């Protein structure tokens, strides 16, 4: 799903924390957002997710560039996953039930996703008994269950081990390639951005500093700030 932002600003208590001129995330993109702490990455993601409203400007979605957020076609995975206090499979089923899927279809989808993410043995387990990595995989499975057209992720691998990170990254690449899902990933990990994302957006102090093909941008940034960030001179 295409996302287009124009003259978008967000203010908190009179302080401008986000100021984006124009930004187009193309349909089918796998876009990473990088930048130091306080750059506005999560705010941008929350705006796209419709969790907060912009102070000014327009935020448009889809081919028709609609101004109303398509909540039923997009979703977000948070850094600290919030799972419903029930079993793993009921968590995955929740968005499908909201969309009126038939029980048989729900069962098939749960089976497919739990198998894909190595959660088959956890299906009946209560969500609060899971480890951090398992919980994040369940959150991802739940987000992917209804085949969203836009998937937003806010540092989903910040608190998980390397093997879970690899699984999540593989899944993101797969749904982007096979299902054409547009993926926007906020990450502090430059290696991950390079490994997973096709495009990378570098932000600082609420503004987009540079946006381009990830390999090129991370290898040979054009802007001085991006160079300093990639070289590790700006605090992440």
């Amino acid at each position, binding site marked *: 799903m295409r996302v287009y932002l124009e003259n978008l600003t967000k203010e908190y208590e009179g302080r401008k924390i986000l100021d984006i001129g124009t930004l187009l995330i193309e349909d089918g993109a796998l876009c990473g957002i990088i930048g130091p702490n306080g750059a506005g990455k999560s705010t941008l993601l929350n705006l796209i997710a419709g969790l907060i409203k912009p102070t000014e400007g327009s935020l448009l979605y889809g081919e028709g560039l609609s101004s109303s957020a398509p909540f039923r076609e997009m979703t977000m995975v948070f850094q600290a996953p*919030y799972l*419903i206090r029930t079993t793993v499979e009921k968590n995955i089923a929740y968005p499908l039930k*909201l969309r009126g899927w038939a029980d048989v279809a729900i069962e098939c989808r749960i089976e497919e996703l739990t198998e894909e993410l190595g959660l088959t043995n956890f299906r009946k387990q209560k969500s609060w008994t899971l480890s951090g990595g398992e919980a994040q995989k369940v959150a991802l499975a739940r987000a992917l269950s209804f085949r969203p057209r836009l998937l937003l992720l806010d540092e989903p691998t910040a608190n998980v081990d390397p093997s879970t990170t690899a699984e999540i990254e593989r899944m993101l690449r797969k749904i982007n390639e096979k299902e054409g899902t547009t993926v926007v990933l906020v990450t502090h990990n430059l290696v991950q951005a390079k490994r997973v994302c096709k495009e990378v957006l570098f932000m600082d102090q609420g503004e987009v500093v540079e946006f381009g093909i990830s390999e090129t941008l991370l290898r040979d940034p054009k802007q001085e700030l991006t160079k300093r960030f990639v070289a590790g001179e700006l605090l992440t």
Partner: protein
Amino acid sequence: MEQIAIGFQEAIDLLITGDAELYEIVGLSLMVSLSAVILSTFLGVPCGALIGTHNFPLKNALLRIIYTLMSLPPVIAGLVVFLFIMRRGPLGMWGITYTPTAMIIAQVCLVTPIITGLTYNIVRDKAPKVKSLAVTLGAGRLESLKLLIFELRIGIMAAIVTGFGRALSEVGAVMIVGGNIKGKTRVMTTYIAQLKSMGDYSTAIAVGIVLLILAFLINTFLYNVQQKVEK
């Protein structure tokens, strides 16, 4: 001490012999308190959830009023309800003075603020996360509220148990609006108060023990439900 020992003995006798008057009083106590708690739950839980998830003008003032009403003296609640329902009151045409209906209304006035206030406090802490989750999974307003109540069901259950405790043990309000009429509006607490004023301490203690046993059994049941939900 002797009175208490006799009271224990009498309580056992009353329960074993199946004293008809006592069972009637127990039945009415349960009917009034449970009805009041059920009504208060339907009023208080959605209200607490809505206040906890929305910002609106005068929210702080409303919360202060709810907190004040949480510690509302039962006699005041009883008096206000009585003034409304007495023959010359604005709701006098209902003709419910000295009836169990009036007692239920008085208890709803006492219990609803407790359930609302406690629900609000539980919701306020957890609502932002649950709301964000619901929105990002495509839930509408009603579905979000349902998810929130589902997620906070253990805390809400505790609020309901607290409200039930208040209803069952309350005496002032039901005395004023019910009048403690034998066979009609007499409940355990008003009966205990009457027995005490008549100097019949051992029977008063016996009824008190029955009341405690009932409270224990109901709380045990609710605790077990809570535990099952938690597992």
